[in-house]
């Protein structure tokens, strides 16, 4: 297989393969849907692992995956060489995020929205656009893993990094798919 160009892709591929090997023994007994979940899960965790916990979204992915048993095994397998404290940090992240969320809800309930009287057209347009932007940031927050707990600025940074990683992930997966098909067809 043509080696992936960048370091990120190589790392991702290696970790993904490691993750898939965890499922290797159970391969025959799994149904299709389980397999799909396994593949996707290992791919996601591998992707998050390439960031080594430096970015918020990767920590969020790892934290979510550690919640259930299957994910926990994968996480341990993929991350244990690197850092123990990373795993602890991810588990602590969940608690912290809950706290942040509660605080935000509290703040929002206490804040009273003031309506502008006699708003001119320009002001009205501005407020409309602000609302649109706000709504869309909400959507983006729901898309990026762990995005609800970030402010605007870091949200965009995270989106940037997440997008790069996603692209790499898609590229690697597609290429390995093509290669595997070649192999299968050639047989």
């Amino acid at each position, binding site marked *: 297989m043509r080696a992936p*160009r*960048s370091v990120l892709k190589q790392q991702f591929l290696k970790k993904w393969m490691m993750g898939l090997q965890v499922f290797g023994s159970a391969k025959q007994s799994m*149904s*299709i*849907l389980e*397999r*799909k*979940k396994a*593949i*996707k899960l290992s*791919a*996601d965790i591998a992707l998050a692992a390439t960031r080594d916990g*430096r*970015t918020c979204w990767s920590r969020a992915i790892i934290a979510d995956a550690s919640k259930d048993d299957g994910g926990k095994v994968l996480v341990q397998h993929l991350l244990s060489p690197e850092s123990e404290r990373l795993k602890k940090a991810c588990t602590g992240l969940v608690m912290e995020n809950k706290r942040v969320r509660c605080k935000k809800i509290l703040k929002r309930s206490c804040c009273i929205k003031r309506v502008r009287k006699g708003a001119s057209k320009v002001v009205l347009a501005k407020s409309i*656009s602000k609302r*649109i*932007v706000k709504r*869309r*940031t909400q*959507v*983006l927050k729901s*898309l*990026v893993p762990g995005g609800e707990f970030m402010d*605007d*600025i870091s949200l*965009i*940074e995270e*989106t*940037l*990094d*997440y*997008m*790069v990683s*996603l*692209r790499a*992930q*898609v590229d690697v*997966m*597609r290429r*390995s*798919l*093509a290669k*595997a*098909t070649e192999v*299968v*067809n050639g047989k």
Partner: protein
Amino acid sequence: MRPCSREMQGMNSLFNPSSQIPLQDLQNQQIQNSHFDPNLSSNEDFLEQMLSSCSWADPKSPWDLNPPTNLPFPTNNSSSNSAKHRDLFNETPSSNSDSNNVGFRNNFDESVILASKLRQHQISCGNGAAVSDAAKMMLPQQLLMAVARGGLSLNDDIDGSLSQGGDGSIQGLFNGFGAGSMNGTDGASNQSMQHFNHPQGGAMQSPNLGAQGAAATTAVMNQPQASGSNGGAPAQPRQRVRARRGQATDPHSIAERLRRERIAERMKALQELVPNANKTDKASMLDEIIDYVKFLQLQVKVLSMSRLGGAAAVAPLVADMSSEAGGDCIQANDNGGSLARTTNGSQTASTNDNSLTVTEHQVAKMMEEDMGTAMQYLQGKGLCLMPISLATAISTATCHNRTSGIISSHAPMHQSNGEGPTSPSMSVLTVQSMTMGNGGGDGFAKDAASVSKP
């Protein structure tokens, strides 16, 4: 946006580490920068007017832009701000092989330091006249210094309305210094940004540092604009009582502006990544970003679903779907696509937004049986079949100017038990490009086929 192409190069150099292009461009920029000198020397009196209150021993030295030797700055300033400047000037490194890069990097560090110090200075001193004087004196100097090192991009559209005015007056300012070289600074600054970012080597860090640099430059930029617009001859600045635009002393608004600038800077970095991102306002950029992230995630899902690494993989999946939703999908076809029913019937694992995946699998199943009905089904949905090579070619082409979602999945069409491929393996590609023409229903290649939506 003019800087776009350069930044595109920059991001390319970030992600595909090859430093060939930037170096060549930098050399080109150096040639352009050298045009600074003859233009500037003719306007010395204007320069001296601006710098009259601060004792610069050699007013021409900032404009000495011979790149290999670093800029010789005067070291005998006696104004109150001199110590600050001197520290920064003496930080300019001695010439090394990468002197330009390092020089530019220090430019940004210095401009950041300058901007932050300036802000603190202003905030702490309040609205006094003395401060405004000092500030006014400092700012032109800083601006000139920063530009002297070729490190400013004066055409940054950080804050739309602000930059409009800013550009106009800055350009007015710099017409005296050789307007032709504005392009040089623009390119050079972007170039320097790239070099600044490239050695850092991380996509995450670059928006940060770029943001700081741009925030600093806009801070420096706005104030000279204000001062320039408020007085024809900035040599003797008038005393101002009310807060000027761009120099609101209210810390809240400064923080607000900082925040806005940072966001805009990062948006620009994102613009390079997202295809079809020629929008300049936040809302539509956010929209594009959202669509692209959704699309990428969907791609991963589809890839993982069909990337099942086995001959027997998809057949049970398809069989599952057919057993669960066999009758449904045919009826859905006749009813003109009540896809909800088929979705409910067959999708136990996929999420709701995988209607296309459902379509793909239905098509795959139908192709097993009868090509005719499969094609009819496709046409009923407004989809068509095309070779995967063509689809990828079109997708890469449309990536540059249109939103296109490409999901590729591989569904080997094997009979049960993986005895061997009885039908050619197929790649099902779904393209959601809005403006893609009808890709043609023919061309069902043996190895690859794709379903695309015109």
